[in-house]
């Protein structure tokens, strides 16, 4: 670390040089001036310039400074380098707003920008800056010590961290692409596709970690010793976390809980949105809430799912009708009403049954099937409403 700091301190010596100051000072003053001007109220014909994005103003100013320095036969390399950074930032901005915004939904664009594009931009600027001030190759060769039997150099560690980060944030699109291809090729279900997507991400990231350890020259015996120590720690301290991770992996492999599936959670049908390493995110349609459930709970308790083999759900509603009405007519009426609803499947057909004899009313049960399990509540409510309306039209007592 001290060597690294000394290296950075060495770059400051460049500030002793007149040509360096002649380039940096105007750019620094330009930036400060622009920041100050942008706070002032807009007046006059030049105010339009102040409405331009800061990066555009900076780029124009840097070009102007470079032209003035060239006219004075001074050096401009640093100004041009800073201008390249501004240009790259402008291109990134253009790529984000008009281009990618056309094809990507806002939340995906936000994720892509904040997790991949902007970090990559910052990384490129940082590396270009270091390369300009010193030697990137020499800095990469700085020794950091011996870890797990491997002599670690700054460059190795940095490249490994960058690759792992890129794998972590950049794997979604390729994994989704591969799983889509597999779905089209083999005809697997949507749930299986999502499971494959997740498993691919885990597998590739795990391979990345193994590659990283090899690249850093970690001694396998040392890593195993640490893993052994960790397993003791896992047994006592973080066993719940570990248990959730293992449960999540197992659920994915088994396919019992997969993204896109609909299952019952605390009496309500929920859709699995994401199966994370520690917890599963469920979406509850009733109140548009996201429920985060530890993976372990699916692993240790029974789960009712409507989408294991198909997405059809058989629903039912029970009602009591005055015994004065002919049960056969009531049964036919209920089946007709269910069949008329657009969300109710024709096969298996709706079925009404007389299930109870009461002193004043008979009990009936109407069963019907729907394609989307999450709409069970709304379809049932629609049918109840239709029954009330039809009973009213026929002059019958409202059902109980």
């Amino acid at each position, binding site marked *: 670390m001290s060597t690294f700091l000394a290296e950075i*301190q*060495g770059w400051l*010596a460049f500030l002793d040089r007149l040509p360096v100051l002649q380039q*940096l000072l105007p750019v620094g003053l330009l930036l400060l001036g622009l920041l100050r001007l942008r706070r002032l109220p807009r007046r006059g014909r030049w105010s339009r310039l102040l409405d331009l994005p800061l990066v555009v103003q900076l780029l124009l100013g840097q070009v102007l400074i470079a032209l003035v320095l060239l006219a004075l036969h001074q*050096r401009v390399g*640093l100004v041009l380098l800073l201008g390249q950074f501004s240009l790259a930032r402008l291109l990134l901005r253009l790529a984000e707003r008009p281009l990618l915004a056309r094809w990507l939904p806002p939340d995906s664009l936000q994720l892509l920008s904040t997790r991949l594009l902007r970090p990559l931009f910052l990384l490129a600027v940082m590396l270009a800056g270091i390369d300009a001030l010193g030697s990137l190759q020499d800095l990469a060769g700085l020794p950091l010590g011996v870890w797990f039997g491997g002599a670690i150099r700054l460059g190795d560690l940095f490249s490994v961290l960058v690759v792992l980060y890129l794998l972590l944030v950049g794997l979604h699109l390729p994994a989704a692409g591969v799983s889509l291809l597999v779905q089209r090729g083999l005809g697997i279900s949507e749930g299986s596709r999502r499971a494959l997507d997740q498993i691919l991400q885990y597998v590739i990231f795990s391979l990345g970690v193994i590659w990283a350890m090899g690249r850093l020259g970690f001694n396998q015996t040392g890593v195993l010793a640490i893993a052994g120590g960790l397993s003791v720690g896992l047994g006592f301290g973080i066993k719940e976390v570990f248990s959730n991770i293992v449960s999540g992996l197992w659920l994915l492999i088994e396919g019992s809980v997969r993204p896109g599936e609909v299952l019952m959670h605390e009496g309500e049908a929920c859709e699995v949105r994401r199966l994370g390493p520690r917890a599963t995110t469920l979406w509850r349609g009733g109140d548009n809430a996201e429920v985060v459930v530890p993976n372990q709970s699916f692993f240790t308790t029974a789960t009712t799912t409507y989408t294991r083999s198909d997405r059809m759900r058989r629903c039912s509603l029970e009602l009591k009708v005055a015994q004065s009405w002919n049960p056969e007519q009531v049964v036919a009426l209920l089946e007709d009403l269910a069949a008329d609803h657009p969300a109710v499947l024709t096969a298996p057909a709706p079925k009404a049954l007389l299930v109870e004899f009461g002193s004043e009313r008979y009990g009936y049960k109407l069963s019907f099937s729907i394609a989307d399990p999450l709409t069970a509540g709304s379809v049932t409510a629609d049918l109840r409403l239709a029954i009330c309306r039809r009973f009213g039209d026929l002059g019958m007592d409202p059902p109980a």
Partner: protein
Amino acid sequence: MLALAALLQGCLGPRQTLHVVIVPTSRLEWLQRDGKDRIPWKPLLQEYQRLHPGLQLQVSVVDEAHLEETLRRDRSRGLGPDLLVLRAPVANALLQQGLVERLNDQRAWHRSQPLLEPALADRVTTAAGVSGLPAYNILTLACFNRQVVLRPPASLDDLMGLAASGRPIGVAVDPIGIWWSAGALGAQNAMVPILTGNPRVATASASPTADRAALLAWLTWLRQLALQSRVDIASGPRELVEGLESGRLSWIPCYSSSLGHLERSMGKRLGVAPLPGGPAGPPTPFGTVMVMALGSDSSPPQRRLALQLAELSLDPLVQREITLESLMVLPANRFVSVPVASSGRLAALEQAQRQFDERSKLLTASFSADRLRRTQPLVEDLLWKVMLGVVTPQQGTEALLRLSPPS
């Protein structure tokens, strides 16, 4: 940014920094990357830091192939190095392009010049001025495995005999790998103008006919050498060194700057000797002088410090330490005696230096690396083709003569 700079400066304390760029000899850059701290002039840096404890030396390595481009880019930004350590011909080329400062305007040069052999001073003197201050010499030697080669070959016939007896030897078509044999077969007078571009010096013993005959003799011998089954034609010095380290080769020509690396890997198995001579006399080892050249962007205090460091490199004590600690270079200061009696390696270096001074007269003059950079690949390609039998020695001779500059 300036505020951050000031903050860092405040936290880390006010220290001066000198930016030094080492330019390893072409094709030997892997040696320098191997261990920047083991370079021969480590004693110089230590002594300099002892004299200037508050000074930070920031040393970086730039390959010769990318040097010009790097310097041009850094110069346009005002971020060029304060001092460069590089081969004299490269320094000469950079001076002609205005990428380093001439030294003859500096008092340090006038103080140091008497310490140098006039021939050495000539090697850094160009029409544009003095390109750098010579620090030490590097030469081509023979490196061998003592366990396999009990007595190093003293002549080209011995070398052939060594290969015939089943000991694998390695050569390469680059300046380090084979050009030394040109002198042993009398072809050096024809080769030097081809390489350096300096006009041929006409003497009674040297004529175009003699050049043709000598070149033919050399190329014929190279072809005969390549026909030996135990002779390995390597792609360059790195392959030769790795071959010797691994035991695949038992004898190779080597640059003295690779001795430290070889010693670390081979230990006492490493033997060092002068290169073998031939019917026309001793060999013509390739040698280069490493010089310290001034960067063109330094502030006045940085320039002063750079000159102090360059001047210190010729200090007799520092020169002796550089020589004795590395055992792979020879001092540039002519008043520093080399203890040849106590070190066989230094004796071999001294002999190679003598052969270089006496036999490579034209190469010891000042020349620009630009010409060598242009002709070297052509010559290497031609030697390669002759050794592999793609062209005959006669055809090779004519092709080489076509590369000669007009007299």
